[in-house]
């Protein structure tokens, strides 16, 4: 038997390319060809009417080919961009135009588009465009959106895009009847995905074939393809979208089409030359998307053991200027907030509000970090009020292992019921306590106190719905060389799909790992796909790849049985050779390449495999060469479509030290217990956790989008927006895995991509509050991120008030 690769730390195949500088990211495409370069004029104002745009003189700049404003767009291109995910409660959904029409609603909104010989010239040309604005009062932040003194969109009363309410049981009644109650106001600020590579698009129109090829740095190539075809009035069959290597996505690249994803192909077609747009860093800050800005109010009723009897949460979601991605983020907060707990009754109401800021679409975690923060702060507050250990209160509220599948009685983001498939939360908590040293912490704290040092410990638990549908597909093709070519439609942004999926295929088909080559995100190879988001790639495409490989295997066995005159059941495939089990090596065997030749009754012989095939005869001479229920070629194709999401879970704990003078916050120990079902490649999963934790540290302690009251993002650079360097993240992360397989897919896997980032705000708030507890009793951390200055100010306010 070939050794199983599933579950092994197989080194990544893509690394060879990347390490040699041979990656192909979108800005590397067509270098050296007769490329033109695009640049975009963006609004410097948060809210204004466009009175006039003067582009005269722009085309006088040598090397400028085109300048477009909204007036130059026609047909579907002149309409607003699509609202990708409508929802009945999104009563006032709004999207921007590819180029602003009459009004701009955030700093960074695209107004004019220039194509020139190079980017330098294109930017020179932008400088010649004159725009007359009539200023409108900007709405910035949840508070001002709620006050609705001014409106972002004239026709959206109260700035409310949507209001959604869900309830399971009578939460308010349960709270009123509960022995104890408390309420909390909790805030999370804006952050963003900020992948190291920004957005980018290249397009080439081929007049000879009437086809458009688009390379774009996206998390959904099939989505972009459909959007481009619709907007440019092309048939889907005329458009190919290729996602090259992507330098990180983290959510922001799932939104589509960006204005440039349409304007670049349009320009390529209009000009008959390939065109490239590569976003610069400032543009990424002000013209892509952000997330996380939410304000929450919690009412909770609980019993003497800390068991939650009723939970009533209201929150306000800042969706920025537009809502292309619908209500996904707040819906996820509202449902995933529950984590591993089962409150007696639950009601949640949210409003999604417009502001004159960059729009909001999912960023790794997608609403879960906010939900986790709310729930875990509530658990901590209950523990504090009852004087109980924080782990005890959590344990009292856990869904128990024998309660799965567990139905929360709510509707999840995919429109399906919120039903957890599996998990072992008490088991996870025990592991976490051991890993971080929860029970030993008081001794450690005393030691530290003797040295005059303040330390605190915190924990946070989450459940993450992963692998949302509707489907993914895969195609497996065995070539006559014996190489196996695999295609799945979703895209890759660093998750090592070329490795993980090859592991699955190698196992299912019985071939050597190095004979398998995986392609993702190329609509020429797999035109039906959804995309890489919501921690769904391993679950969805992993399963699809597995099923497709099994189909190919079936066909291999059928043909080989015929050729070897053996029964299919007696055959095995090892290292790409099919043989009759129990026969000595070399006798009665046939390799996959030869089977591939036999699968295709072609007259022409090209290669060694074809010659080798001549010794075998397959098929019934009395029937047509391709039987009625058969097709030529050694291929397998299949799709995986689950009933519902599969729910991964985990718990993080951290020990921090806060400086008594400077309020500096140091991480002493970080521990993660993680259950994402069966692991395809533990090395890759751990890498995802490391990255998630670092991003979480950024979100909890450093990163915030600093908007001033006029709607200017004042920290739109890496100089000012503090993303963690190595010096800011934990030097070591202790990780322990639990593997409760998902019953929902053939591999038993659950998603792992986003997990690391979900509990960060919650776990740091808990630990920092704990560190301060004996010096500032009652000091509550209710807003994240928290910087040393924030903590310093909190201490001062606390001292003044007590």
């Amino acid at each position: 038997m070939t050794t199983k690769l599933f579950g092994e730390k197989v080194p990544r195949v893509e690394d060879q390319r990347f390490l040699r500088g041979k990656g192909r990211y979108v800005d590397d495409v067509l270098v050296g060809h007769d490329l033109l370069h695009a640049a975009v004029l963006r609004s410097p104002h948060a809210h204004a009417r466009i009175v006039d745009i003067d582009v005269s003189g722009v085309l006088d700049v040598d090397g400028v080919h085109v300048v477009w404003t909204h007036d130059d767009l026609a047909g579907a291109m002149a309409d607003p961009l699509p609202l990708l995910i409508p929802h009945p409660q999104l009563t006032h959904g709004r999207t921007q135009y590819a180029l602003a029409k009459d009004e701009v609603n955030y700093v960074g909104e695209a107004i004019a588009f220039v194509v020139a010989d190079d980017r330098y010239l294109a930017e020179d040309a932008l400088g010649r465009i004159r725009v007359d604005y009539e200023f409108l009062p900007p709405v910035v932040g949840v508070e001002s959106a709620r006050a609705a003194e001014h409106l972002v969109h004239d026709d959206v009363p109260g700035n409310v895009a949507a209001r959604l309410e869900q309830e399971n049981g009578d939460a308010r009644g349960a709270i009123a009847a509960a022995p104890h109650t408390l309420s909390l106001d909790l805030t999370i600020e804006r952050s963003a995905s900020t992948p190291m590579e920004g957005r980018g698009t290249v397009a080439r129109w081929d007049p000879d074939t009437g086809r458009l090829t688009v390379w774009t740095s996206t998390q959904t190539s099939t989505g972009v393809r459909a959007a481009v075809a619709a907007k440019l009035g092309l048939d889907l069959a005329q458009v190919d979208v290729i996602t090259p290597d992507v330098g990180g996505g983290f959510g922001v690249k799932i939104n589509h089409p960006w204005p440039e994803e349409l304007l670049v192909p349009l320009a390529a077609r209009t000009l008959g030359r390939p065109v490239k747009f590569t976003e610069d860093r400032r543009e990424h800050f002000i013209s892509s998307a952000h997330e996380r800005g939410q304000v929450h109010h919690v009412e909770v009723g609980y019993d003497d053991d800390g068991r939650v009897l009723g939970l009533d949460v209201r929150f306000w979601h800042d969706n920025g200027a537009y809502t292309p991605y619908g209500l996904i983020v707040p819906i996820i907060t509202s449902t995933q907030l529950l984590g591993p707990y089962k409150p007696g009754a639950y009601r949640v109401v949210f409003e999604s509000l417009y502001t004159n800021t960059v729009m909001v679409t999912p960023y790794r975690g997608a609403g879960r970090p906010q939900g986790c923060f709310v729930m875990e702060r509530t658990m901590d507050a209950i523990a504090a009020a009852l004087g109980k250990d924080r782990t005890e209160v959590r344990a009292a509220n856990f869904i128990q292992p024998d309660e799965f599948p567990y139905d929360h009685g709510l509707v999840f983001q995919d429109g399906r019921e919120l039903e957890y498939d599996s998990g072992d939360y008490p088991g996870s908590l025990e592991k976490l306590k051991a890993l971080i040293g929860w029970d030993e912490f008081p001794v450690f704290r005393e030691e530290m106190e003797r040295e005059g040092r303040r330390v605190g410990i915190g924990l946070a638990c989450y459940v993450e719905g992963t692998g949302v549908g509707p489907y993914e597909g895969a195609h497996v093709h065995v070539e006559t060389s014996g190489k196996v070519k695999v295609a799945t439609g979703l895209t890759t942004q660093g998750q090592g799909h070329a490795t993980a999926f090859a592991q699955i295929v190698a196992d299912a088909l019985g071939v050597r790992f190095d004979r398998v080559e995986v392609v993702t995100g190329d609509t020429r190879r797999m035109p039906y796909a959804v995309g890489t988001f919501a921690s769904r790639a391993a679950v969805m495409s992993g399963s699809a790849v597995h099923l497709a490989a099994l189909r190919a295997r079936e066909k291999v066995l059928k043909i080989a049985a015929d050729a070897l005159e053996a029964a299919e059941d007696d055959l095995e495939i090892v290292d790409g050779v099919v043989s009759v089990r129990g026969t000595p090596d070399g006798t009665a065997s046939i390799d996959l390449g030869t089977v591939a030749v036999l699968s295709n009754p072609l007259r022409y012989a090209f290669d060694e495999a074809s010659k080798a095939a001549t010794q075998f005869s397959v098929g019934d001479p009395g029937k047509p060469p391709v039987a009625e229920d058969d097709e030529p070629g050694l291929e397998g194709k299949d799709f995986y479509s689950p009933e519902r999401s599969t729910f991964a879970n985990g718990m993080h704990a951290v020990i921090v030290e806060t400086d008594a003078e400077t309020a500096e916050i140091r991480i002493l120990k970080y521990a993660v217990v993680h259950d994402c079902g069966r692991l395809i490649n533990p090395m890759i999963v751990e890498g995802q956790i490391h990255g998630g934790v670092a991003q979480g540290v950024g979100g909890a302690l450093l990163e915030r989008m600093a908007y001033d009251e006029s709607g200017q993002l004042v920290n739109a650079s890496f100089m000012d927006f503090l993303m963690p360097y190595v010096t800011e993240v934990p030097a070591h992360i202790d990780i322990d895995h639990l593997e409760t397989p998902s019953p929902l897919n053939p591999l038993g896997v659950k998603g792992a991509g986003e997990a690391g980032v979900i509990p960060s705000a919650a776990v740091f708030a808990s630990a920092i509050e704990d560190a301060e507890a004996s010096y500032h009793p009652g000091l509550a951390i209710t807003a994240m991120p928290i910087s040393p200055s924030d903590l310093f100010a909190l201490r001062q306010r606390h001292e003044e008030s007590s």
Partner: protein
Amino acid sequence: MSEELHEVRLSVNGVVHELRVPARRLLSDALRHDLGLTGTHVGCEHGVCGACTVLVDRRPMRSCLMFAVSAVGSEITTVEGLTEQDGSPEGRLGPVQQAFAECHGLQCGFCTPGFLTTITAGLRDNPDPSEDEAREMVAGNLCRCTGYVNIVKSVLRASEIARERR
């Protein structure tokens, strides 16, 4: 009005290239778009992320902060120049590259070229770093994917590999 072009000779990875560029052309753009050496990446164009780091006369430099015309007369090494000749067409991975492969020091790979060049220079100065020194060595480069844990491991492993190969 067209821009004035300057003839420059750039020596990159031991190969001399002649090109005509405007004075304002960044070294990063000249390497990537004029010479087709797209292994050098641009993550911020304001000198903070380190993705564009190349070696200029063996010192790490941010190629987004240098003009191509000011690199004349220097020997430039990019990520493409870090592999070692071993007779094979593509060469074998240099010690730092090899260490990244072994330690899963990269995910999307976008920041990686800047780390590889930075560490190559760092290990020349300090061939046997402690863990703290390894962290210090990469403390000026941003990575959004890996959380740096495996990058620090890679630095330490690279130093071992270099020793083994010596």
